[in-house]
């Protein structure tokens, strides 16, 4: 995929070229939105909004990392979604079991390659991490999602959230510290190799 050529075509209004970029980046965009928002449906909506917004403003892209530019668009869409939630809070509709209780891990999200026990364990770890992510301030969460979950380097993160490199380093360190403290509470859920042992703040 010649990304630069596709971007140039998209900038001249070629929707097919842009859709090729969408197909390439949609998983990253969706995962970023999912980790920031913590809800699949909202993440899907925010991703769609982000791509629409990206196409409409792609003429403003002046080079550099397209992924970082796209991530800025999706974080803005997530912020909009969070602001909307604040104005109109809603109650999520979780699927129910036969007993009428909420199902934490819907069947259709399960990985077919895992045994039920492995799947349950993976779900618990994921929920623990998502819970800790949700407790982070939004600025910290955005940085840690981009750097540690999306694997973007500091420069890309700085470009994506339009903040100085020093701010990125500071936010990332604090976010990791808070995550570590939060994950201490779920120590029994974590695999032995990932258990956290020390108290850094001491």
């Amino acid at each position, binding site marked *: 995929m010649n990304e630069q050529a596709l971007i140039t075509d998209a900038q001249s209004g070629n929707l097919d070229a842009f859709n090729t970029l969408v197909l390439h980046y949609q998983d990253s965009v*969706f*995962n970023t939105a999912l980790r920031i928002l913590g809800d699949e449906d909202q993440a899907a909506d925010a991703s*769609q909004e982000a791509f*629409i917004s990206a196409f409409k403003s792609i003429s403003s892209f002046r080079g550099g990392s397209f992924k970082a530019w796209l991530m800025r668009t999706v974080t803005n869409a997530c912020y909009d979604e969070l602001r909307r939630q604040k104005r109109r809070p809603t109650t999520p509709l979780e699927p129910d079991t036969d007993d009428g209780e909420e199902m934490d891990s819907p069947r259709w999200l399960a990985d077919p390659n895992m045994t039920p026990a492995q799947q349950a364990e993976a779900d618990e770890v*994921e929920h623990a991490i998502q819970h800790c992510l949700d407790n982070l301030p939004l600025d910290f969460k955005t940085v840690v999602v981009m750097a540690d979950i999306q694997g973007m380097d500091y420069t890309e993160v700085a470009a994506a959230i339009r903040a100085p490199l020093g701010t990125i380093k500071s936010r990332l360190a604090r976010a990791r510290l808070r995550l*570590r403290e939060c994950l201490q509470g779920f120590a029994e859920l974590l695999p032995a190799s990932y258990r956290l042992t*020390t108290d850094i703040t001491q």
Partner: protein
Amino acid sequence: MNDHDLELLSSYLDGQLSLSDSARLESRLKSDGRLVSALDDLRAARTLLRQLPKRRAPRNFTLTRKMVGLNPPLPRSYPAFRFATVVATLLFFFTFGVNALAPQLAQMSPFGMGGGGPEIFSAAPAATEAPAFAEAAATEAPATEAPAATEAPLQSASDLATLMPATQESARIAETPMTKIGGAENAGGVDQPQVASESPSPAPIIPSMWQSVFAVIAILGASLMALLRRSASNRWK
């Protein structure tokens, strides 16, 4: 351990420290077990985050033209057609408006816009015609009465009975001009507005032919625009 140390460890973990800072931190790590433990914990936290399962997008987020409000590219002549259609439509309604308002404007301001003209022109012939008609009636009246008077003794009673309507009719004809003569005398007073109101409405300011032309241009332009739009969207598909 302070915030600065924590930031140094986090950056060191990501390989974002300069060579000199890295060397300095590494020398501290050799002697400070707590720093090593903290680094391990940060690494473990980062590894956990990196191992979060990557969800696949639940659907494709590809965009449609409708989503982004894109319209099919229209031919270059399209704006010209649009302009012509709009202008023709506006002119069509303008001509209607002007023609509809012209008589009212003329009545409202007799000296304005030549509005007094038709009244003067329609009243003047009436005034001149009235005496002429009266005179003609006056000259005809004796002529019709005279034969009736001469023939009356020669006819029988029955003939008289049949002739009576004729004579009555001729008398009525003779009388009506007389009343009209009186009316003609007052032509300048009471009868004048009546005559003026009976005069035909003034001709439209803008000929109806132009209205037809504008209507045809507007309809043709709108049809052509619709055709161009349809063919453009068909080509786009």
